[in-house]
């Protein structure tokens, strides 16, 4: 009677697609540029996989081939995370109301 976790993940995936669909329609057009930069930043959560790839293995052999790919991925994702969130913040800071 156990349900395969894949099915749960599929449910989560599909529901998230719905959420994404609606969330984006509710974004005001004047913030579409920040939307693009912030989605870019959050899609870098792939760093989670990069960290696992970099760290797993024996403690002394840090730079095995598969780990190296992990480290490179961390580097790339980190550029995105910091760059994406900061540039978004910079943009959003500029949107001001009339004083």
């Amino acid at each position, binding site marked *: 009677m156990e349900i395969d976790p894949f099915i749960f993940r599929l449910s989560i995936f599909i529901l998230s697609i719905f959420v994404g669909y609606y969330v984006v329609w509710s974004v005001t057009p004047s913030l579409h540029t920040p939307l693009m930069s912030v989605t870019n930043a959050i899609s870098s959560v*792939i760093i989670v996989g990069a960290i696992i790839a970099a760290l797993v293995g024996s403690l002394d052999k840090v730079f095995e081939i598969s780990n190296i790919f992990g480290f490179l991925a961390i580097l790339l994702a980190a550029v995105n995370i910091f*760059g994406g969130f900061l540039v978004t913040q910079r943009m959003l800071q500029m949107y001001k109301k009339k004083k």
Partner: protein
Amino acid sequence: MSANLSAIFYLISGILFILALRGLSSPETSRRGNYFGITGMIIAIVVTFLSVGNFGIGFFYVLIFLLIGGSIGSFIAFRIPMTAMPELVAGFHSLVGLAAVFVAISAFLKPDAFNLGVVGSIKLASLIEMSLGAAIGAITFSGSIIAFLKLRGIMSGSPITFKGQHFLNLFLGLSIIVLIFFLCKNQSNNLFWTIVLISFLVGVLLIIPIGGADMPVVISMLNSYSGWAAAGIGFTLENTALIITGALVGSSGAILSYIMCKGMNRSFFNVILGGWGASDQSTSSSNKEQKPVKNGNADDAAFLMKNASSVIIVPGYGMAVAQAQHALREMVDALKKNGVKVSYAIHPVAGRMPGHMNVLLAEANVPYDEVFELEEINNDFANCDVAYVIGANDVTNPVAKTDPQSPIYGMPVLDVEKSKSVLFVKRSLSPGYAGIDNDLFYRDNTLMLFADAKKMTEEIVKSL
């Protein structure tokens, strides 16, 4: 950290990402939204560290790479001028794509680290997920690179087409699928590398036939791809945060491309199959130059606007090119001092990126409650004295309302012609992005101000 606990935290970080996008529904909530996003990211990273639990020398290196990457990212974020946002986003997408490829490679090389079986007998589902993730990631990477080069002007923006292009793409696409099928059978390293390589090639081939000006739609589409790649890897790693985020980003990017295409009244396929803007451009720009236009200078414009009771500013791509937003703000301030009511009208596809004009105006400290969307302000042109059209062209072209033959027919446009007089700031009579002539230039109530948008605006400020 137990699997359950980390699953809960990943869920929380996924929800924080949803809230981050939700915040963008208004400028007031957007900053808080961004903090939600940052928090979500920190949670995801910390939880991953704790659940891997390996704090040896490797951990130290991870921190170093994080720091290097972070510094580069921060540096870029602070330095980049706002006008370069389109290429920045394209560049960043390429990085996400490549990161996804690297993670997939590493999972393929060391499946046991991810609980996916051992080398040579990786679980079938995981193998499919990771090779799809790698392929989409690779397409995202090379496609974004091309988009970046075109937008940055390093590569020519004109579409590169050759015979049988679409067939080649189709063939390569199918061959990726076939190779994945065989990969599932024999799990050969070479096959995996081949898939990645072909995908890189597909990314390049998909984007080169698309004209430079269509890049924004492409960027958003690549954004969507990077989301699906992340979701694919998320399934492989059984990570909820990645699945939620991937699906979010995937669907949001797709919808944004759709919104853009709708704003231009073109079909998505029309954009993707490429090459449209550039070819028309040359044909239609020559035959109408003879018609008489009224030619004005800064003093005329200043006089007209000073004596107006209300002015609507219509910025377009030319304002971005000329970086005229600051001068424009000064002009508006001067007008307001003279008691003129001024507002800004933004067309959904003005500029070269959705929301492009809004960001630039915000950069110049224009309060966002003076900036209106097309539907909000379009009726006001009828009661307005002067429309100051600065570097915009297509988004004002009335042919979209009248001529079913026109490529932009059906696209909603700003009704500037209804205002008492229209000022057009541009450098020549040459057409805009859609490559079609604008009838408004020749109308009686139009005054053309031929100059760079920034220079002209600065001169007007002086005359005021």
